[in-house]
């Protein structure tokens, strides 16, 4: 595909939309084509895309973005509990709450840069997590996580519908938000989120953020007040995280404190770097790899391995299964750790760099053969 074509926003969006909506088809052969994992791809995709707007464009490494994810989830579940099971208000409130928290934390944290900024965000995240886990239990329901209950008021729903037997489920005007409809709801928001991110990346605003990343001091002397730019980027990414948190609650109405732990923030950092910081698609690739490992690799056990390698002769099968069993199931962390190291050692730009290298190698190959073919009439 030619590069100029990809510079057109609408071509990119058309390709992206097609790829996302057809995920259930092309992910099925590798065992990832089921609603929950698809939902996770879309939700964490949004989280990572948003994070990339901060980290990829400004270079500010936040270790606290899981807070906004958690806040989004709590807000959404409270919206389900107090107002209505309809997901739209939940999504709206969560995005706003994510943004509000981002304004507060961002305003304070952005007074510093570099590693100090990272530690500040980390400290805020850990404080939020610890409080949500214990002291704030009346709001967060602590370790168990905030859940729906039959006795919840749901004032708006109560006006229109009689409560059924059992817990109600989240819906979009009657369409239930679990399973595939839930995935498509997330997918549509992912596409919108990606579109916004694409526009930001290709806007003067995005360019200014990149310039801040490249040389912040110079930006000041060039006539820009960098702090509002950084805060805007921080808040936008916080709102993405809030949205992702809301969607987690939409597809599964439960909000737990562990979503806010620093390791959860670390996960999105790793996803972004693994895929390729500052690239549009990279973070999504990172999400795909990490979530795939977490859900599929962790579920392989010796028996499934035997099935996979049953085509080998018995003795070889046993050897292969014995070796590979250390890297799957309970060993999936090990594989992930090794993958991080290998990627960063050999492909500093993340998976995207790998694809670019393959792409340019292919292009060179292609060009060479083309050049050979076109030799006689060469004149340009």
């Amino acid at each position, binding site marked *: 595909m030619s590069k100029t074509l990809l510079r057109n926003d609408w071509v990119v969006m058309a390709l992206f939309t097609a790829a996302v909506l057809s995920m259930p088809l092309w992910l099925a052969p590798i065992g990832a084509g089921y609603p929950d994992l698809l939902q996770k791809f879309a939700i964490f995709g949004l989280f990572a895309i948003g994070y990339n707007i901060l980290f990829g464009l400004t270079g500010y490494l936040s270790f606290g973005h899981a807070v906004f994810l958690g806040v989004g989830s709590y807000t959404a579940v409270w919206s389900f509990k107090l107002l209505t099971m309809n997901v739209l208000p939940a999504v709206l409130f969560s995005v706003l709450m994510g943004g509000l928290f981002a304004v507060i934390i961002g305003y304070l944290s952005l007074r510093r840069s570099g590693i100090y900024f990272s530690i500040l965000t980390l400290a805020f995240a850990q404080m939020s997590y610890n409080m949500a886990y214990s002291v704030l239990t009346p709001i967060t329901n602590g370790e168990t996580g905030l859940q729906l209950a039959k006795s919840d008021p749901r004032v708006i729903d109560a006006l229109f519908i009689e409560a059924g037997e059992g817990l109600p489920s989240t819906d979009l005007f009657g369409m239930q938000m679990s399973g595939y409809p839930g995935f498509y709801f997330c997918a549509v928001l992912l596409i919108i989120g990606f579109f916004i991110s694409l526009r930001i990346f290709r806007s003067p605003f995005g360019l200014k953020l990149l310039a801040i990343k*490249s040389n912040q001091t110079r930006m000041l002397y060039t*006539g820009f007040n960098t702090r509002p730019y950084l805060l*805007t980027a921080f808040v936008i990414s916080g709102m993405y995280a809030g949205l992702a948190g809301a969607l987690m609650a939409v597809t599964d109405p439960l909000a737990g404190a562990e979503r806010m732990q620093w390791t959860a923030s670390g996960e999105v950092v790793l996803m972004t770097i693994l895929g390729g910081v500052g690239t549009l698609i990279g973070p999504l690739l990172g999400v795909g790899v990490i979530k795939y490992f977490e859900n599929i690799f962790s579920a392989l056990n010796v028996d499934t391995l035997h099935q996979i390698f049953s085509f080998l002769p018995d003795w070889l099968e046993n050897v292969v299964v014995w070796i590979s069993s250390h890297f799957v199931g309970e060993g999936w962390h090990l594989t992930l750790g090794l993958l991080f190291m290998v990627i960063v050692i050999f492909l500093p730009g993340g998976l995207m760099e790998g694809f670019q290298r393959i792409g340019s190698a292919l292009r060179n190959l292609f060009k060479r053969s083309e050049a050979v073919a076109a030799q006689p009439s060469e004149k340009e």
Partner: protein
Amino acid sequence: MGNIVLSIKNVDKTFGGLHALGDINLDIEEGKIHAIIGPNGAGKSTLLNVCIGRLAPDRGTVEFEGKNMIGMEPYEINHAGMVRVFQTPEIFPDLSILQNVMIPALAKRDGVFNFDAFKSMASNADIEEQSTRILEELGLKSQTHDHAGSMSRGDKRRLELSMGLVQHPRLLLLDEPTAGMSRHDTNRTIDLLKQIKERGMTKIIIEHDMHVVFSLADRISVLAQGRIIAQGTPDEIRGNPRVQEAYLGGAEL
């Protein structure tokens, strides 16, 4: 005497025990090129840093078009119309050459903050054109999409200069604009600066290269050990024995 653009009054600055600037008084006339010369460590760069808000003086004021600049943020000073071109190139190494020039052009247009996240880059055709023109003038047009970080040092200096020029400041502070350039490039830069002079932009130049100073400057101030020891036209300075003693070691100019 013409209109005074910049007026530095009684500026003092000490670092620890070192008296970097002592009671500096300096007026810059509109439309002129004013050179500040002096031996290494004379306080030239400190003076520039005070002017653009990078350093706060212990005492004194810097008035730009009648407004005191002390305590203002660097970006406010920039928007007031006073722009500095750095000695060691302070460019955006990760951006393309064209983007490097577009950023200051955008600053000129958008002000200190403008949330234009949903405007496409293509809608800034005027900015792009303006930037390309400047690059063309400085002879950098051929490589506008290359990364600025990979440019040669001389090219970086020219880029730095175009980043200052694109903002059309009323006062441009140039910190050794030709240091490290070849003779050829230096001459080109001199021509360019002369050309721009005709547009009525005031400039302060700090320079080592006497060739540059004397071919450009309308007025010269000589700084030594944090004090202005002489001021005047190039001819006056050329003939000033104190200058020759303090700065030129008695050598003939």
